[in-house]
């Protein structure tokens, strides 16, 4: 049992909206012509829960498994092992529709995630039709209401995605996600494809919607400044594992894991005179097809010890209702967990 699970004791007040319990996901990838297929371990034994009304940030670099975890928490991808629970029920026992009523996605690229041959109104109304809530004129009214809510003019109802700007398209994607009033929206890099001035409009909108509708977010990004702004709790992923988790204030004030420290040091704030930070990370790059033995971060870690090369660290509880998985923070002897 990991800490994320331990925190969710049965007498906890509310069930998490979506919860990953010890999930792993592997993929078979082609090794190339005449070569055997290889196993890619995208996510390995990860636990993460999103409580009602909460905004959880998930950060990590490309290939760390954050999108795979997101797709599992949307019910779009089955874990190889472990289980996803939606409002306390195992995903295997829920229908696709029941999950879609609870969780909806907003994807990164508003250029490829909207059907170019459907009008804006039709795109936003699709979830209503899929969930059988199609009420004729009522649907148009609901779609227009939602368009107004996300800052899209009603006159765009019959327009096509190609006639919209990037920011408008992302508003369409957000309206589509919210039209069925889900309790959780999984946002996978929702602003990465947008210009700076448009990005702030979308972040503002997501914050407003959270306050007004009480929707919870799983907010995935490589942009730490955006995650800090959006999330109340942050999980840091590295090569398939959550290596640190804490409330946002604690994580930014006192990052524990050397990887989190390097990530935070790499945030280039617009403050001239500070120069480009030295991350102290090695030149080797993380490759999910060749996960190092021991601690998976050790080849890049500036504080790696001998033990890190052979023994994988265990998650230990940390300040800020969090956990950290690093040999620099050995578990207290009494609470040592079985390997």
């Amino acid at each position, binding site marked *: 049992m990991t800490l994320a699970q331990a925190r969710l004791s049965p007498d906890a007040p509310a069930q998490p909206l979506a919860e990953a319990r010890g999930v792993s996901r592997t993929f078979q990838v082609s090794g190339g012509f005449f070569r055997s297929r290889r196993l890619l371990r995208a996510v390995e034994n990860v636990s993460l829960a999103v409580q009602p009304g909460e905004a959880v940030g998930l950060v990590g670099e490309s290939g760390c498994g954050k999108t795979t975890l997101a797709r599992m928490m949307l019910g779009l991808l089955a874990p190889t092992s472990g289980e996803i629970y939606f409002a306390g029920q195992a995903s295997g026992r829920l229908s696709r529709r029941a999950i879609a009523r609870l969780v909806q996605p907003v994807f990164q690229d508003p250029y490829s995630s909207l059907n170019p041959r459907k009008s804006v109104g039709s795109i936003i109304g699709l979830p209503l039709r899929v969930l059988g809530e199609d009420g004729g004129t009522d649907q148009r009214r609901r779609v227009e209401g939602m368009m107004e809510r996300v800052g899209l003019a009603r006159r765009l109802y019959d327009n096509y995605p190609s006639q919209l700007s990037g920011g408008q398209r992302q508003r369409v994607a957000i309206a589509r996600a919210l039209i069925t009033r889900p309790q959780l929206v999984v946002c996978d890099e929702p602003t990465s494809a947008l210009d700076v*001035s448009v990005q702030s409009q979308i972040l503002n909108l997501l914050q407003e919607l959270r306050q007004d509708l009480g929707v919870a977010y799983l907010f995935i990004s490589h942009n730490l400044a955006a995650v800090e702004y959006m999330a109340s709790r942050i999980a840091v992923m590295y090569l398939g594992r959550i290596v640190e988790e804490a409330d946002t204030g604690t994580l930014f004030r006192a990052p524990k894991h050397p990887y989190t420290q390097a990530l935070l040091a790499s*945030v280039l704030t*617009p*403050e001239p005179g500070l120069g480009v930070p030295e991350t102290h990370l090695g030149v080797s790059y993380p490759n999910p097809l060749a996960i190092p033995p021991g601690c998976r971060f050790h080849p890049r870690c500036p504080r790696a010890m001998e033990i890190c090369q052979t023994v994988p660290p265990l998650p230990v509880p940390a300040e800020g209702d969090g956990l950290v998985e690093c040999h620099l923070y050995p578990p207290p002897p009494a609470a040592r967990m079985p390997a």
Partner: protein
Amino acid sequence: MGERILSVEDLRVDLPVPAGTLHAVQGVSFHVDRGETVCIVGESGCGKTLTALAVMDLLPQRAQRSARRLDLGSRSLLGIGERAMSDIRGSDIAMIFQEPMTSLNPAYTIGNQLEEALLRHSRVSRRKARDRAVYLLERVRVTAAAERLKQYPHHLSGGLRQRVMIAMSLMCSPKLILADEPTTALDVTIQAQILHLLAELQREFAMGLVLITHDLGVVARIATRVVVMYAGQVVESGTAADVFAAPAHPYTQGLLACIPVPGRTQRGARLGTIPGMVPTLIGEATGCHFASRCAYATDACRRNGIPLDAIAADDRQVRCIRHAEIAAGAPAHAPEAVS
């Protein structure tokens, strides 16, 4: 500072499009001295990439370039012909692009491509070229440099490819490097490492560096001077310290207000926004390009073209007729784009 490496005056790029002529770059002027890093910053479509391509004479064929002055050192690059220009490209001026995979040839080894840069431009032996390739790969901290020469681009990770690109740009000891969004496709920790490396090499080889980016964080940390572009024009320029301490143009002010800064922006508080959209650059426009989105615009702003005025020493310039009033606290109103 030192010797002037690049002088650009009144650079214009026109592109014929079905609806008329797109004035993509409208009279851009800037200069780069030895040992200086000049950042050209702006959002998509502002003309920053075309400015760089125009300097290199690598514009799309149908594009029309004109300039009052385009000097590399004391030599004019205007009308020198493709033959002379291709001698300059790669030897005196090198370019680094955003996506290293598309700028490296997948069919040739790393060694082949590195050596070619030198063999093409100077009379050295293959052996000498290989020695320099190994030396530079080591300088950009690529491990096992000699073995890497036999590898193909697809063997390398994105960060490693960008290091190879940087090594390649240095093969002929250029006076000037033009880097177009060199770290945008990279992860944050790797972005910090690459920028750190670029800054270090630029100091060591005393080159001029022009870095094109949309990321104000990158600009603040690496720039000596900043050129802010909007809708084909320079709207503000100055030293990084001056521009970030006291942005003079309402667009620069707006951009800076849009980005969340950890530790400074309160979580969930509204971020600044720039309402409206970039105007079309097709056909002739009158008045300030930013007027429809500007909270300080008056009728005078919409009437005539706005000149780029010097406002202080150190090449501090701004294209705004109300900058002094705004600095003195002129009241803002709702921009036209909102009403």
